[in-house]
């Protein structure tokens, strides 16, 4: 895809101040609050967070899947020089599945149970390209072979329920990549799969990304799988980004206490978790009644170190901390770096 005029100086994907609000019977749900992201072409961004952190809604808003009638969306989403939120619905529909594609969490329910998998992919091709059924089917078979479906000639006419979860996710990947999208959003693509299959699927996404030069947003709650695949990481909590950095930087020098909690929560096969390290206690906040101060404060182990109870009264801003590193925390920089290094030391020193 060639860059359109006006995209000069703007990153390939540039989300600024994105907010998504759902009106519900219990009140307004602020699912995403002022999220800004940017990503260069061909790179991978991981958005990490717990359930309810707003990561999936962010992805769906970029994809255009958030119902504009049911939700209030504000901010700007620039993709390759086009502002998606300003486009009329029919043009958004044009981009969906061709320029932007998505893989979902549950491959068991994401394919239509009544149609053969080949036909479902052919439908995706013919929604955007005016080619014959036979040609589309040939292309489908090629793509299914590339995502590693064995005995493709037979499987192309299988129904989804005849395939395993891993196979279905491969079909979903084939369907997402069939129109060579510029941006692929993978929303927890491995969560519903067996551990052995998880690695295969991530590898597949990474290798196809290389091949097609696709830009990828990977949504996950598992920091353990991020390190290998992502160039950049955004950690989300309570609808906001709380820390953003390159993957290297984030693993080496994490700062936000929530990120530390996530890092401590990654189960390690080779290490015993140290006893004096707390994973994150409690539950994510209700998106209807968010705390007045820092949204993470009720679960934070270090908020009492901030003087004046600032964490209880004031929302911290997302501020730069070093180069290409943004953190949303009231703790002083030196203090949180010191805390982080202690935690990392404890993690590294856990008994094998």
């Amino acid at each position, binding site marked *: 895809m060639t860059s359109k005029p006006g995209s000069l100086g703007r990153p390939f994907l540039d989300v600024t101040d994105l907010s998504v609000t759902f009106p519900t019977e219990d009140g307004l749900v602020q699912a995403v609050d002022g999220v800004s992201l940017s990503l260069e072409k061909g790179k991978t961004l991981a958005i990490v967070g717990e359930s309810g952190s707003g990561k999936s809604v962010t992805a769906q808003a970029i994809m255009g899947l958030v119902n504009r009638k049911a939700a209030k969306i504000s901010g700007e989403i620039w993709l390759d020089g086009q502002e998606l939120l300003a486009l009329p619905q029919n043009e958004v529909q044009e981009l969906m*599945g061709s320029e932007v594609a998505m893989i979902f969490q549950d491959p068991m329910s994401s394919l*239509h149970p*009544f149609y053969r998998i080949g036909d479902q992919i052919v439908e995706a091709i013919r929604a955007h390209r005016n080619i014959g059924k036979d040609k589309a089917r040939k292309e489908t078979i090629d793509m299914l072979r590339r995502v590693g479906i064995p005995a493709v000639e037979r499987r192309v006419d299988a129904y989804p*329920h005849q395939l395993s979860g891993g196979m279905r996710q491969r079909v979903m990947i084939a369907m997402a990549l069939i129109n060579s999208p510029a941006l692929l959003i993978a929303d927890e693509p491995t969560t519903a799969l067996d551990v052995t299959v998880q690695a295969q699927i991530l590898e597949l996404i990474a290798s196809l990304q290389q091949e097609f030069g696709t830009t990828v947003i990977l949504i996950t709650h598992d920091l353990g799988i991020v390190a290998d695949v992502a160039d950049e990481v955004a950690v989300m909590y309570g609808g906001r980004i709380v820390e953003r950095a390159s993957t290297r930087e984030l693993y080496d020098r994490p700062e936000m206490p929530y990120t530390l909690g996530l890092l401590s929560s990654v189960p390690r096969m080779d290490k015993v978790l140290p006893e004096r390290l707390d994973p994150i206690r409690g539950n994510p906040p209700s998106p209807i009644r968010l705390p007045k101060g820092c949204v993470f404060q009720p679960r934070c182990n270090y908020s009492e170190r901030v003087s004046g109870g600032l964490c209880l009264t004031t929302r911290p801003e997302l501020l730069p901390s070093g180069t290409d590193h943004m953190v949303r925390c009231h703790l002083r920089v030196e203090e949180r770096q010191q805390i982080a290094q202690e935690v990392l030391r404890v993690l590294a020193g856990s008994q094998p």
Partner: protein
Amino acid sequence: MVAYLIRRVIGMFVLLFLLTLAVFFLFNLLPGDPARLTCGKACTPQLIEANRHRLGLDEPVIVQYEKFVSGIFVGRVFSPDSPEPIVCHAPCLGYSFNRHEEVMSLIARAAPVTFWLAIGAFLMWIFAGISLGIVAALRRGRWPDRVIMTVSMIGYSLPSFFIGLVLIFFVIIKWQLLPFPNYVSPFENPGQFFQTMLLPWIVLATLNAAFYVRLTRNQVLEVFGDDFVRTARAKGLPERVVVVKHALRAGLTPIVTAAGLDLAYLLGGAIISENLFSLPGLGSLAVGSVLQSDLPLITGITLFTSTIIIVANLVVDLLYAVVDPRVRIT
């Protein structure tokens, strides 16, 4: 597929056999002497005994049952030793001594009336119920949804005899828009047929349509939350294709199959509507046979309608396997 079909058909016959057993013995255990009922006011004990013998009721129950079942397959002859034996051809479901006619021919005369009643009402309620249900679901929470749901609630709450009586009073008696119902075959006099059937169709369809509106609305709303509908949107398909090909195809399948069973149930006779509009269908016949304690006729109608429902069940199961590939037929 073939093995499944054979198994299901065998199962069906076993079920039908058990059904004849249950129906026959249940009705024979009922209090009352069928022989006494056949002989009217000027009755003598000798006449009762003679009738008992003619009906074969003096034989052991087991022998009676055996004759009943074999009659279905090869026909039977009542009182063969009398000067005027009664021949009942296969499939013989018995002989009504009240009406002096074979049960099968009584049913054969009543069944088409019920058939036309059921089919007409079925088409009406499926069309109205499903289309209104879809409209309500697509416009959820807005005025079309509210109007449709309110009207369907009213339609569902009103008993059919009430709707029927109101319609008869206004349409036929007060405004005289339609003549009094008088059933004729649609092949004989289509105009009169439609004039007679219109109100019964409306009465039967109202109740069921109201139910199907709610069923359809819930199904469609549920399916719109399904992941595969989101996938269809994410492909960039036009909303019309997402709704019709993806959402409705999955959402309406259970409804259409459920409707098959409701139709079968209706084919067994619509007692209230048929009586209200004096249609000589199975429902009227059943009521008449019960009022006259016409045991052979009751037995025959029960068997006939149960058979329709059992067969319909099989057809619906097969149909379901055709429309939903997840239903494996092995």
